[in-house]
């Protein structure tokens, strides 16, 4: 709504710390995380399992509160963030009792958009999401890749400027995943949204992102921020490009030190 005058930083996380009770006492999940996301940026967060990546996204989405530190969304730290950023998790969380189209319009429905109007907006994007002809199908009739695209459509139709994606491709097979990567980049170029992606897949992070944040093992801290200076638009051919390999090698080095002991 503010148009041109919006600040170039959409999300600013400062000194974020999170402690959680567990069976072994208080667990330090996040320890002083700083993060800045620019408008229209594609940013990835990568780190070993249990480093608090998902907790970080939960806090940014407003589902969870930090023990210390601030999150500013469009420069605002005070107001609740629930409902202001779109958040997609690894599980597609499609409602089995709703058809593809009914699942897709969920965000619009919650916002009180008229049913016909909401369906129209969803229908306009169905082709682009590879779901033509499946509008009235139930999720149980869809493949994993299609289900994930419906979840994506639902996330996009929430009509927020920022998308938080928590390992959205984690459950897909390698082939489907790389197709989804190319597709997501096309989509992102068209929609001009800001994307924060949590992943543990190095190829995925390099292929998709402008910048990659590498996190340490628990308690999670930002270990390195890596610029991915590869040309766009990117296609799958890039994966074998020497420049891609160089960035990937650097990222792998940063991560390797953080793998929990005794694990590859």
């Amino acid at each position, binding site marked *: 709504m503010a148009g041109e005058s919006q600040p170039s930083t959409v999300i600013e996380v400062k000194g974020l710390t999170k402690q959680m009770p567990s069976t072994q006492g208080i667990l330090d999940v996040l320890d002083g995380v700083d993060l800045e996301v620019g408008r229209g940026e594609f940013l990835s967060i990568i780190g070993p399992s249990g480093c608090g990546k998902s907790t970080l996204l939960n806090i940014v*989405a*407003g*589902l969870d509160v930090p023990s210390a530190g601030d999150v500013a969304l469009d420069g605002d730290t005070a107001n609740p963030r*629930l*409902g*202001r*950023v*779109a*958040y997609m*998790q690894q*599980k597609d*969380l499609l*409602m*089995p*009792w*709703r058809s593809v189209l009914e699942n897709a319009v*969920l*965000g619009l*429905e*919650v*916002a009180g958009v008229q049913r016909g109007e909401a369906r129209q907006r969803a229908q306009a994007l169905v082709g682009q999401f590879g779901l033509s002809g499946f509008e009235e199908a*139930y999720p*149980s*009739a869809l493949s994993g890749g299609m289900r994930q695209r419906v979840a994506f459509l639902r996330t996009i139709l*929430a009509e927020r400027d920022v998308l938080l994606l928590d390992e959205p491709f984690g459950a897909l097979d390698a082939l489907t995943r790389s197709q989804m990567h190319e597709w997501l980049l096309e989509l992102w170029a068209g929609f001009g949204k800001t994307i924060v992606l949590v992943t543990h897949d190095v190829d995925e992070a390099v292929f998709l992102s402008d910048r990659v944040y590498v996190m340490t093992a628990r308690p999670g801290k930002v270990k390195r921020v890596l610029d991915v200076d590869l040309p766009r638009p990117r296609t799958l051919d890039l994966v074998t490009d020497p420049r891609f390999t160089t960035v990937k090698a650097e990222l792998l080095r940063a991560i390797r030190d953080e793998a929990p002991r005794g694990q590859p």
Partner: protein
Amino acid sequence: MIKGMDMGRWLRPLVVAIAMIGVWEALVALFSIPAWKLPAPSAIAQELVDSRSLFLNHTWVTLREVLVGFSVAFTFGVTLAALISASPTFRRAVYPFVIGSQTVPIIVIAPLLLIWVGYGLAPKVVVITLIAFFPIVVNTVDGLGAADPDMVRMMRTLGATRRQVFLKVRLPAALPFIFSGTKVAITYSVIGAVIGEWVGSSEGLGYLTRISVPMFQTARSFGAVTLLSAMGVGLFVSIALLERRMLPWYFAEHGSDEEAYSN
């Protein structure tokens, strides 16, 4: 769950039924058992045809009791379950008594109901409610707790209110459970009506079974029992068909019990 109107599936129970009726008929003829002791199936069928207007009147009385009682039980059960799952305090305070209510022998309460609420439809409705609300409450409580917590969180990130979360996630997720409870409850409702009529009534199929035996009209008693069974099965099937209509997604996902058994 009932799977459509598939001939093959109906054929097997039909064969069993015909065989049992045949053996019964043969035994009665073979040992010349008097009709007041055990009427042959043919005698029961004859009685159903001969006294059809009598049976029809009493069937209507009982059906009305069952439908009214079941409706009250359903409304009461679902409301109670919604309150129980909305408030942990309410749950702890009330749930033990819901379970306790089922340990009280209904046959002891029923005569007292005559004193408390009179002789007509009311005591039957109370008896039916007392036994039929239980499977509805238990299943609905389980169902309302069955929604995927991640789905609830997803709804919250979309900015959903508590009310929206309930209507769009918890309630639809609970529906298959509510239907399971309802199918049990509707058959209990028929039994409840019979108990109510046995204790004090001047009409209904349950009343007919009670008065026919001392009058040596055993075939009439069996006829009434046959109609009561048919009523229970018919109501169960109606709800199963309604479930199929209302939850097509559920059957698309789970298939039917028949398919599960055939493996």
